[in-house]
């Protein structure tokens, strides 16, 4: 059924629209004035002012590999993140840990760990799927480069972003 929208019945002053136009002009000039005298502060001027101190803890920035308090790269090259990654941004080449290493029972380590930051969609699935708490999404968001090669984060770069993490489960310690 068609609904007839009732038109408001305007008196002659409202039908001239001049008071309404004047009211509109008053509103816009008020905004203009407040901006001129810096009373309105909405825009954050990016390169000078940044979000960084206000980023929430759950912010999903660039993914990064971490070392634990023993200085070991926590990644065991299980390649789960490589499989889960929706845009297939991660490429891992596993290497074998030598027998006389302190962490020999871990058996594998990532020989190469590349994340193509052009592909990465910052979904955080790698972090979610990782059984070793080895990959985390950090707060870096300004990922830039001049070439496509620049945009691929290799293992060194990932570890540099990640740094050392404390207070996580250390399941490969000798005592266990």
């Amino acid at each position, binding site marked *: 059924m068609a609904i007839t929208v009732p038109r408001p019945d305007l008196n002659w002053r409202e039908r001239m629209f001049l008071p309404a*136009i004047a009211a*509109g*002009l008053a*509103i*816009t*000039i008020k*905004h*203009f004035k*407040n*901006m*001129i005298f810096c009373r*309105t502060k*909405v*825009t954050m*001027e990016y390169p000078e002012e940044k979000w960084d101190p206000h980023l929430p803890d759950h912010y999903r920035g660039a993914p990064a590999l971490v070392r634990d308090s023993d200085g070991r790269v926590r990644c065991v090259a299980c390649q789960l993140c490589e499989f889960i990654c929706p845009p297939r941004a991660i490429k891992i080449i596993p290497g074998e840990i030598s027998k006389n290493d302190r962490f020999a029972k871990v058996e594998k380590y990532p020989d190469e760990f590349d994340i193509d930051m052009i592909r990465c969609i910052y979904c955080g699935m790698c972090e979610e799927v990782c059984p070793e708490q080895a990959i985390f999404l950090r707060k870096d968001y300004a990922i830039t480069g001049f070439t496509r090669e620049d945009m691929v984060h290799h293992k060194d770069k990932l570890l540099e972003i990640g740094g050392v993490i404390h207070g996580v489960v250390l399941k490969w310690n000798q005592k266990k």
Partner: protein
Amino acid sequence: MDYFFIGTSLLKIVCLLGFVLGLMNYAVYAERRVSALIQDRLGPNRVGFAGLLQPIADAGKFLLKEQFTPAHVNKLYYWLAPCLAMIPAVITMSVIPFGSTLFGVPMVIADVNVGILFVFAIASLGVYGIVLGGWASNSKYPFLGGMRSSSQMISYELSLGLSVIPIFLLVGNLRLTYVVQYQVEHGWLVAPFVGDWTNPGNWLLAIPMLISFVVFMIAVLAETNRLPFDLPEAEQELAGGYHTEYASMKFGLFFLGEYIAMITGSGIITTLFLGGWHFPGIPDGSHGWVFGLINIVVFFAKVCALMFFMMWVRWTLPRFRWDQLMRLGWLFFFEIALVNIFLVAIILAYFKF
């Protein structure tokens, strides 16, 4: 024909054209900043100090872009249209007295005795640029924009012409310098607080002059395709209207033509209603070149204030629907302007100015 006249005229042409082109560039910048500030944004503030070099960057971008001509257009008219949109607006500047005198030289390029008629004659040519641009583009949206533009301009030309007749009933001369001179002696037409302002007839006349001023102002907004009358370009409905198919400097010319038309329109309003270069208490250029310069500054300050008003209106009011626009033009402004002529005629006959 003496060489002094030719020399000073050339100098005036070069200076005024250069100044107006610069003013137009900064009008674009001002438009962007004003719109931004009204909407609680910042606007372009990166290029140079507070973004003051932005117009130069824009011009450089326009000039360096590819001069692309689509295959389906009518080449001759496609290339002609931007020039036709720009040139009339520039030519109109020539009859506007932008100052009193400087070193004894009158500050108007061509002091023709048909001043306002010349302005209307040339300004109406501006519609050809838009119509040709819309038609030559050979595509739907520009065509609709061109059609809208032609009907809108014809409709509002009527109220534009009729609303200035009261002035010339009062002043009795079409020469624009004479209109300004009259206002110097008798007070500004919309605000006669200078000259013989104690005369009640003067104040009574200010009422129809105010009506004229409002009608003329709105008609100028419509003539220059400014919001709330920007139906020919209507970004949201027509994807840019008559300049949809244009790019690079050809689009730039349309754009700049619109802003020069704004400057010219403001200049005419200033000349006709707001006392031109006159400011209460400041004598004209015959008392020294400093005053001549101040008069020019006063004129352009008034022009800038009017242009700010146009921008303010643009970022406040929404666009009219097409039938509302036509209804407003033909049923209200036309009648108001017509009645206003009779009103002024009666006042003039009764008070015998």
